[in-house]
């Protein structure tokens, strides 16, 4: 029949091009929307990070505190966060870095032992380098009864050097005047 031979339409090549273009456009749109939902690696501390406070000296009258820190774990440590409590509160909420009189730097709220993980396993930070004078703040009332120390490590995260808090390795130490 003549009308079949003379029937006109878009050529197949154009049809393929249109289809492929539509599919590519949709896939780009879906990728843009979903790419943020791809989980990325979290900033974490390795297991086996442990700190110990083998001894301390707390002068209640002058509100002076010194303690030794020892790396008891299997990974080097870059520093630590230190908090204290002077009440029956379970969580230590006094940030002792505000009263730090030692020789090390403070970094992101932690006492940093250098620009790298400088405290190797078994090494000690002597108490002479770990001094805290709470008498400078009259708002800190009463005597301290607990210390909480959290190790800190420098890790490379997304191409940048960052401080990682090892919250799972937190240790609490009851203290009293001595």
């Amino acid at each position, binding site marked *: 029949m003549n009308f079949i031979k003379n029937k006109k339409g878009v050529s197949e090549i154009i049809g393929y091009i249109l289809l492929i273009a539509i599919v590519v456009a949709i896939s780009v749109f879906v990728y843009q*929307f979903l790419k943020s939902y791809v989980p990325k690696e979290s900033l974490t501390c390795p297991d086996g990070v442990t700190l110990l406070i083998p001894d301390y000296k707390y002068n209640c009258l002058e509100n002076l505190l010194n303690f030794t820190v020892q790396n008891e774990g299997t990974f080097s440590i870059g520093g630590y966060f230190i908090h204290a409590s002077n009440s029956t509160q379970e969580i230590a909420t006094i940030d002792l870095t505000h009263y730090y009189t030692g020789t090390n730097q403070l970094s992101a709220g932690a006492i940093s032992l250098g620009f790298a993980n400088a405290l190797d396993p078994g090494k000690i930070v002597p108490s002479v380098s770990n001094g805290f004078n709470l008498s400078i703040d009259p708002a800190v009332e009463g005597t301290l009864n607990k210390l909480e120390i959290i190790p800190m490590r420098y890790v490379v995260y997304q191409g940048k050097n960052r401080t990682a808090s090892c919250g799972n390795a937190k240790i609490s130490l009851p203290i009293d005047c001595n």
Partner: protein
Amino acid sequence: MKEMNKKEKNRRFSQYNFSSKNRKGVSPVIATVLLIGLVITLGAVVFVWFQNFTHEAVTKFEGENIELVCADVQFTANINNGNLAISNTGNVPVYSFNVKIDKGAGSYTTKEITEAVSNWPKIGLRSSGVFSGDISSYISGATKVTLIPILRGTVSNGDERSFTCAEQYGKTISI
């Protein structure tokens, strides 16, 4: 008779005029251009329409969706004699908290922590940060208090925006 039928058929055929010489229409080139233009226009309309049904993604830590970051939030909290203490034990800074007070029998209220305590730090609680504040006036009559973290992220144009994590990422304290 057969010739008559054949003539009649040809007459009718030419009458309907399926011959390509006389058939009018748009040329294939113009049809292609129109089709492509139509597809692009429809695609743009669908894209804009679809955007209205989805919220803009808030991201944190170099493009990770903030809903996923909620799962990495770690904190401990305690209320002792009306004093709220919070310790951020993870590596995700928490900008604020929603404080949900459960007074029992299905009755509860929710406020942001800045309205419940007076000394919440403006930048929130950084990694390993601690907070202590009096919340006694807000929790009177409460049986349970739930703290739900609020994080701060960025949207595609660089603006900062807050995001409240799901309640499953919060912590409940019994009074």
